[in-house]
Structure formats: structure tokens, C-alpha cells
């Protein structure tokens, strides 16, 4: 047990060290430029630009997950990407609406909006644009779906924790982009949204929206650790079979 804990601790320290290394060894732009193209993000900015030009509103759904549970990672990334995307969306004359199904995420999202409003001197337009539309998956989906339909939302971004109800939420706007960390939700969003993210791509949203240099650095470290894991699996599997005698 102690050995397992030690290995885990070493893993975390190695990961953290790689992040720090990438942060200070590489130039920020180099970290972002090495990212491969993901259709959702390129299509998102294109969609945002066209929607803002046309003067239509945008909806940003942060999901119903809280920071405590399995949805904590996606909720944090969603908040960070919200800041970056919100800064971009401020160029339009229609401030975007944001919804959440959790009280804590609502508070943090309000902080983000207030900060953006202060920086861009648009406080009056941006106040009261964060909403709690419902709780749990279906309540949140129902409340959020009714919201943009009432405001003729043109583009919706679902970035956070969504389950199967995400497929229903894809009805909220003519153009919907979806990203979730839930496996079932990913499958459903892939089938129903215009563009969707698969796997851990949702956790890379911060890097793709240029939310900060730490996001690019952590993505680089993630890639290194992934290769290490693959190497461990390829070497460890035959070793396990030989030494322990696996099967079945």
C-alpha cells in the first residue's frame, strides 16, 4: 500500500515537474502553435464571429456538474474557457448568456463575467447574464433549453459536464457545439451537435482558447505522460504475464 502510494506520489510530482518545465522552457506561442487543429474550436470562433456580426445572441452552457465530484475537472476547464471566449464575445453588441446547474459554478461564473465587464468597461450590458436554470441533468436541460429558445439564440456552446440530456440540449440553437467529460454524453453530443469533442479534448479547451500559458504547458506535459503510460503498458503487460501469469 505504501509502495503504491509512493509510486502515485512520484507520478504526480513528475507530472507537475513537466508542467513547470514546459511553462518556463518553451515560449508560450510555441506551446499553442504545436496544437493540432480541432474542428470544434476553429468552427467555434468562426461561428462566434459570424453570429456577432449578425447581432444574434450566444448561449454558453457550463453544465450541471459541481466542482466536488467527477465533473470538477470539466467544470474548472469550462470556467477558464468561458473567460477566454467571453472576452472574444464582448466585441458583439449582444452579450452572451451563461447557464449552470450548480450554485458554486454559478458564483464562479459570475465572477468571470464581472471581471470581464470591468476590464472592458461594459458593466451594464454584462450584469445579470449568468443564470442557474435548473438542477441535476434533466432539470438543468429543461431550464436551459427554454432559455435560449426565448431569446432566439443563434449559437450555443455546451462545455462542461453533460450526460445523455446533452442530446436534447442540442436543440437549443441552430448551431451547437458540445464538449463533455462524460462518456455517454460524448457519444450523444457527437451524434447531435454540429461539432463535438471526444475523450480528453474537453480538458484541453483551456489551451485551445488561449486561456493561459499554463494550459499549453500542461497539455504538453500530458502528452509526455501519455507516452510514458503507453510505454509502461507495452512493457508491463508481457512482464505481468511472464511473472504473474495473467489470463482471461
Amino acid at each position, binding site marked *: 500500500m505504501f509502495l503504491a502510494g509512493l509510486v*502515485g506520489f512520484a507520478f504526480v510530482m513528475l507530472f507537475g515537474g513537466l508542467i513547470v518545465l514546459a*511553462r518556463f522552457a518553451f515560449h508560450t506561442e510555441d506551446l499553442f502553435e504545436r496544437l493540432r487543429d480541432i474542428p470544434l474550436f476553429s468552427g467555434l470562433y468562426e461561428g462566434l464571429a459570424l453570429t456577432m456580426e449578425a447581432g444574434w445572441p450566444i448561449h454558453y452552457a457550463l453544465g450541471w456538474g459541481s466542482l466536488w465530484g467527477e465533473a470538477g475537472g470539466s467544470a474548472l476547464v469550462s470556467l477558464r474557457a468561458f473567460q477566454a471566449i467571453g472576452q472574444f464575445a464582448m466585441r458583439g453588441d449582444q452579450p452572451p448568456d451563461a447557464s449552470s446547474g450548480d450554485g458554486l459554478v454559478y458564483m*464562479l461564473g459570475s465572477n468571470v463575467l464581472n471581471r470581464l465587464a470591468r476590464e472592458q468597461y461594459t458593466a451594464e450590458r454584462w450584469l445579470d447574464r449568468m443564470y442557474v436554470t435548473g438542477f441535476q441533468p434533466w432539470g438543468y436541460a429543461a431550464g436551459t433549453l427554454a432559455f435560449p429558445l*426565448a431569446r432566439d439564440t443563434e449559437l450555443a456552446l455546451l462545455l462542461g459536464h453533460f450526460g445523455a440530456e446533452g442530446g*436534447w440540449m442540442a436543440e437549443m440553437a441552430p448551431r451547437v457545439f458540445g464538449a463533455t467529460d462524460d462518456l455517454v454524453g460524448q457519444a450523444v453530443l457527437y451524434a447531435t451537435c454540429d461539432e463535438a469533442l471526444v475523450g*480528453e479534448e474537453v480538458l484541453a479547451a483551456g489551451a485551445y482558447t488561449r486561456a493561459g500559458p499554463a494550459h499549453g504547458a500542461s497539455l504538453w506535459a500530458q502528452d509526455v*505522460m*501519455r507516452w510514458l503510460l503507453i510505454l509502461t503498458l507495452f512493457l508491463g503487460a508481457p512482464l505481468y504475464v511472464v511473472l504473474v501469469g495473467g489470463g482471461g
Partner: protein
Amino acid sequence: MRRSFPIAVAVGVGSIVLMTWFLPLPVLEGLRWMFLDWSVLLTGVALVMAFFYFLHTQWRLIRRRQNGWGYRILVVLTATGTFAWMMFDPTPRTASWMMTYVLIPGGVSLLGLLAVVLTYRGLWMVFQRGGGWGWLFFLTVAVVLAVDTFQATQGPLPWTSVVSGWLEGVVVRAGVRGLLLGMALGFVATGLRVLSGADRPFEE
């Protein structure tokens, strides 16, 4: 100081909990469980706050006379009425009635709608994006699995069971594990960013 204090608290508490997870030092063990206890308490508080934020949201939209504001009045009345009812009559019978005749039928109906949405969205997706060999393979696999499920009760195609068994046991299982591994790395990276202070969602 005002900005540093929340960062220091977040980094300190997170580091202690993480350290004690891997290295259960007796000194820090008590601190860890105390933090967890507090966080459970805060979660309950956040739930209550979320309810009031929800009411506040509906009220703002009603005041703004946004489309559908009449239904929002109904939502507010229903939510506050249910809250008051449960406060004054918290018997299991009341809660059971609400569950049996309101929550479950409503949720199941929405899930049923999801089936329709998924079906026609899937068809539309195939029509719009499909046509390539990848899509053909995907649909072929789906058909084999569906046939296997259907003919599990009656059917003369036993080979579908073999194929679907291999798909579920090897392809799906491996794919899910790969996805979970990648997402686990992403969660670790997200947590480390918060622990190092690079990500500060609590920042005003």
C-alpha cells in the same frame, strides 16, 4: 494580500489532501479528514444557495418580461410551494407521492423525448456527414449489435453473438479504457494547475 490569501488557502489545503492521499502521515491525516468534512458541509450549503440562485434567476427573467415569463411564474410558485410543503409535512408519504407522480413521470418523459431526438438527429447526421466508408463501418457494427439484441429472443443468426461479443469485449472495452486513461491524465493536469496557482477560478 487580498488576492494572495485565497490562492494560499487553495494551494495549502489541496497540497495537504494530496500528500496525505499518497503518504498517509499521521500528522496530516487528521487535517485531511477535517478538510473533507468541511467540504461536505460546504456542498450542502452550496445546494441550498443554488436553490435561491435559481429563484433569483427566474425572478430576473420575469422582471425582464422575456419570452415565456408566464411559465417562469409557474416555476417559481411550484418550487416555493413544494419547498414549503416539504418543510411542513416531511413525511415519507408526501415525498413518495411527489416522486411517483411528478419527478419520475417528468424525467421519464424527457428521456423518452431524448430517444426521439437521438434517432432523428442521428439520421440527420448520417445524411449530412455520412456516406464515407468510416460511416458505413460504424453503421454496420450498429446493425450487427442491434440484430444480436433483437434476435436474442428469437433469430437464426448466431454469428452475430460472436461478433458482438468480440466487439464489446475487445474493441469497446479497450476503447473505453483508453478514453478513461486520457481523461484521467487531463483531470490530474487540471488539478495540478489549481494546486500550483496557475488556475484561479475563485479569483474576482
